[in-house]
């Protein structure tokens, strides 16, 4: 036990500089969020009288509740869709030899390469011609599509570390390929699926340009648009609201991550053979 305590101390000390730098902007956000309006601009490190009520005002000023629901809808659906489509593809890449294999992998990378700024222009015209503008589901599709590359690459790398023995053992016991996939294979790939889900969820949660381009009415706006609109080009920026909103927007993501990261544990694969 003492060894673990000592080890923990050392590790925390090693991580400390990074943690300080990471927490700095959060400290700035929090402190600014609770400052009264006439103090927001001064660089003091603690407000003269902290004002938690700011958060309540911020909530209605940004139509936060509605935006969060839109963001949740989009992010969860995009994640599920990306996973749904990527798992078979990754399985194919890791278990089969076929002619288009290398080309497909390269193609996936290629799908990441076009700069979103200009991509949006072409994408917008496509979505308009499909009459899907101002439809939150078009955003879901685009997000899922963007995340396929990472998902497939990640899943495939992980799948390749899972020995074929396990599946062969299951087949010999009479399990169908589908059952094997679901009951034997996928559980072992949990860490990879977790990373994929985290990645897609966060990307979808924070994405701004595509959402702003595809959506029209404020009722369908996602969270990043609402937060960003507080700041982008207004003559008077209410920084305490902006910081407060940005802070609260990170909570769902942190929660999802905290919940999922426990599956990033080593020794999952070989252990199963036994």
């Amino acid at each position: 036990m003492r060894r673990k305590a000592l080890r923990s101390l050392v590790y925390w000390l090693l991580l400390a500089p990074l943690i300080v730098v990471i927490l700095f902007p959060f400290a700035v956000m929090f402190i600014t969020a609770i400052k009264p309006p006439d103090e927001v601009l001064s660089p003091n490190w603690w407000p003269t009288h902290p004002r938690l009520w700011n958060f309540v005002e911020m909530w209605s000023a940004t139509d936060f509740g509605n935006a969060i629901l839109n963001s949740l809808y989009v992010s969860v659906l995009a994640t599920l869709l990306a996973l749904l489509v990527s798992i078979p593809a990754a399985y194919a890449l890791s278990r089969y030899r076929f002619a288009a294999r290398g080309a497909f992998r390269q193609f996936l990378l290629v799908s990441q390469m076009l700069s979103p700024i200009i991509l949006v222009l072409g994408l917008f015209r496509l979505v308009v011609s499909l009459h899907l503008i101002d439809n939150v589901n078009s955003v879901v599709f685009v997000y899922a599509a963007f995340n396929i590359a990472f998902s497939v690459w990640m899943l495939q790398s992980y799948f390749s570390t899972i020995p074929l023995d396990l599946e062969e053992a299951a087949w010999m016991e009479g399990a169908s390929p589908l059952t094997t996939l679901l009951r034997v294979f996928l559980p072992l790939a949990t860490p990879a699926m977790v990373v994929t889900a985290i990645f897609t969820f966060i990307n979808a949660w924070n994405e701004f340009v595509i959402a702003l381009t595809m959506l029209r009415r404020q009722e369908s706006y996602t969270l990043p648009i609402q937060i960003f609109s507080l700041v982008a080009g207004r003559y008077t920026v209410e920084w305490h609201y902006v910081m407060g909103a940005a802070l609260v927007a990170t909570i769902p993501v942190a929660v999802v991550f905290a919940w999922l990261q426990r599956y990033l544990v080593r020794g999952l694969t070989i252990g199963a053979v036994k």
Partner: protein
Amino acid sequence: MGWMPNWRLTSLVGAGLLAMTAAAAAGTVRVTIAEYSKGTGPYFDQAAKDFEAKNPGIKIQIEVVPWDNLQQKLTTDISAGANADLSIIGTRWLLDYVQQGVVTPLDQYLTPELKGRFISTFLTPSVLNGKTYGLPIAASARALYYNKDIFQKAGLSEPPATWAEFKADAEKIKASGGGAYGFGLQGKEIETDVYFYYAFWSYGGDIIKDGKSGLDSPAGIEAAKLYKSFIDGGLTQPGVTSYAREDVQNLFKQGKVATVITAPFLSNQIKAEAPNLHYGVAAIPAGPDGTRGTYGVTDSVVLFENSKNKDEAFKFLDFLFTTEARTKFDKVEGFLPVNQEEAANPYFADNADLKVFASLLPKARFAPVIPGWEEIADATSSAIQKIYLGQSEVEPALKEAAAKANDVLTKK
């Protein structure tokens, strides 16, 4: 496993299509609004409701966009033919829109009565080739805000009338201690070039003269040297090129700079954020021969050529420019009144600050109506930033900018 969501997709597309056709059939007028402040969205939502109450059968859909993304959104929308019926645009972009034929002239809708509502100075920038293409939704000019407390501490009772006086005053402020800087100088992002023009115009400069750029004229060189001398003499805040307009305003509100040149909405901000600040508004300092200039800006509402609801859209415009609606808007945003009747309203007429702005209007200069203005403005800003940073001497930098500007002017 199969491609499960397929039927969901079909039904979604179907529902989407249905929703679209339903909306279009009801004669919905779509309006793109760029936000000036937190009051902009609610104002237009309320205006839409009021209008719909008076005009059943016409629906207004307000689409709010942050200002910084307006150009991008408009470009994307127009390129796909999916733009709204009406939109706010910066009037300085109007020429490009007119030349590409995407906006329609409003003359056929403008009755003399409607036209007569406006103060002509604000209507003229939207008139091109004799046709009126937009109505001024927002109007503003610039003046010098000064901190009375800092001035008093330095033994100054009056704001400076000329740049020479201004320099002397700034020196006195520096000498009086207290850590405040005399001149809040903007060196970053949009309208960096305009900040330079304040001095440029007062030395008799013209941005465009006889179809060529006037940046490298003696007036330009004098003005740039003046500002550089302020920076070198420690009379401005340090790190000028990291302060955009909002940043300089913030410095003013915190009492860290004694002066800033900006628009009327600062008064509202000071009331809310720094109520104990004693400030005054004065005309921008003049040059040696008394010439002074201020920058006038309007944003216009335009009607797009491909709109299918032009009549209804214009009705909404008419409504927005009634005195009652305009007064509300200008109060919320802190803009200058564009309606004559509105200007007579005691709220505006008796406002000491607004009076100064209004008095500057006759001499107000607007951004030149030329294609490629943004490009020229950017080239100018870059040159000025290089001068501020000391990365380039004044003459070469301005000559380079003038050459770039002439390129743009001759190309289009």
